[in-house]
């Protein structure tokens, strides 16, 4: 069944120039493998269609139960050049948490809360 990422993870995002970074952190260690399986760079690129105009890179941090994404060409030029309300990409974190991923019934039943 489809579940929104906000049920499995929390996140913080920021900027480096025109690149937004999103750190996605599993709410519980056991949920990290699901994030690794479902939240691929390709899916994130697709999710941010119309927002992220460059590549998406993904890095794994199993020690923190976290994934780090770099979304290139996403901040309207970045820094002071950007005209965006969110020129620093601070709200990309919750934008990612909107993503729906596919869980098995068992995985869905085991979710926290």
């Amino acid at each position, binding site marked *: 069944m489809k579940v929104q990422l906000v049920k499995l993870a929390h*996140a913080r995002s920021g900027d480096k120039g025109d690149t937004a*970074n999103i*750190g996605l952190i599993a*709410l519980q260690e056991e949920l990290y493998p699901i994030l690794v399986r479902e939240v691929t760079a390709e899916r994130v690129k697709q999710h941010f*269609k119309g927002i992220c105009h460059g590549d998406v890179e993904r890095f794994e941090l199993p*020690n923190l139960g976290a994934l780090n994404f770099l979304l290139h060409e996403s901040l309207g030029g970045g820094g002071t050049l950007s005209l965006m309300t969110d020129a620093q990409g601070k709200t990309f974190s919750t934008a990612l948490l909107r993503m729906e991923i596919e869980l098995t019934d068992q995985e869905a039943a085991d979710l926290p809360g």
Partner: protein
Amino acid sequence: MKQKIRIAAGQGFWGDLPDAPVRQVEGGPIDYLMLDYLAEVTMSIMQKQKARDPNAGYAKDFVPLMRRILPACVDRGIKVTANAGGVNVRGCADAVIAVARELGLGGKVRIGIVTGDDIMSRLDELLERGIELRNMDTGAPLSTVRDRIQSANAYLGAWPMVDALKQGAQIVITGRATDTGLTLAPMIYEFGWSNNDWNHLAAGTIAGHIIECGAQASGGNCQYEWRSIPNLADVGFPIVEASPDGTFVVTKHERTGGWIIIPSIKEQLVYEMGDPHEYITPDCVADFTTIHLEYEGRDRVRVYGIEGRPATEFLKVSISYSAGFKAVGTLVYAWPDAYDKAQAADRILRARLDRLGLKFEQVLTEFVGVSATHGPLAGRPSADIPEVQLRVGVRGPDRNAIERFTKEIAPLILTGPPAVTGFAGGRPKVEEIVAYWPALIPKEEITPVVEVLET
């Protein structure tokens, strides 16, 4: 050797809570106070201030802050590391020395200053010798913006600050030093770590990363269970309790708000992260995939297992250059059909800008309340949405065109769709854009200079 030192973060950026450093000094035991004042384009603001007034060009707030805390720091032996010096480190130090004397503390405190980061006057010579200072993000050579450069500074690491501490400085003021170095330097100095002790240097660097954004590690901007975070009105800024073996505990003063929990630390660890295997600083390359966290009590998270690798042969350089002008105008449209009205107003505005023949590099329209933060991901708003803010920004090289744009916003109130308000602030301001140009320079080109001044 001390077996434990407590390093407290007092400012996450220039403009953070003014009382936070005072509370760090007064709220409980600390050995060091670290204050990070410099964001990426702060140096250019300071450069402009210095051009107008040769005594300016540093974080001015630092001086009244020192007036408040210097007596307690001297009394209790608290040392301060701060990159408050901007482009006028000496001027900042002189102002602090004057404060020390006024407070009757002359002769009781030494001020260390670190300079050598400013390469503004050397740019042509460097470029002539083939050091291109290409933009790390775009690959473009610096020559493309040479005539518009406003400031150029290399990021110095922890070691010059360590020298200052060794020479007896109690207050260490730097120009463009890394945020992480402000935390790492006290550990190197107190624990006698060597310059190839990569695991320890990486640990101190990561400690610095955790506390360099102030309360963002202790409950501020914390998404995890945000409703449950206690008493953010009284948020305690983070403190690192460091040990000689490179392990450390992140904590905060007792009886303060916020929280130090593993999720809040994780959120700060991933903040502005690139490749977690290589967090590059002048002092080392830290590997974030080696970090381990565990609870050691309430509001205490222990961090251990950190590994690092040798530093690179380069220093990062932060260059700022003038990149045109921008302005942003806003209006608020109310129910009914708020979103439709805001969209109609945008079409009218753009038609008028076209008719005026104004040329911009970019015109960006956002609808606050609908899609300004999450764009198309937010979906279509309810037809009943109570209000929508229209926000239009323009950017371009021609100041006159931007100026003209600012005169087209208010007229929309009497010449556009109805139920509109929100223009109390007057015409939008035209802002000069100072953009950031990150580059690399071989380390041997930069010679940090350390001086220790008597008060």
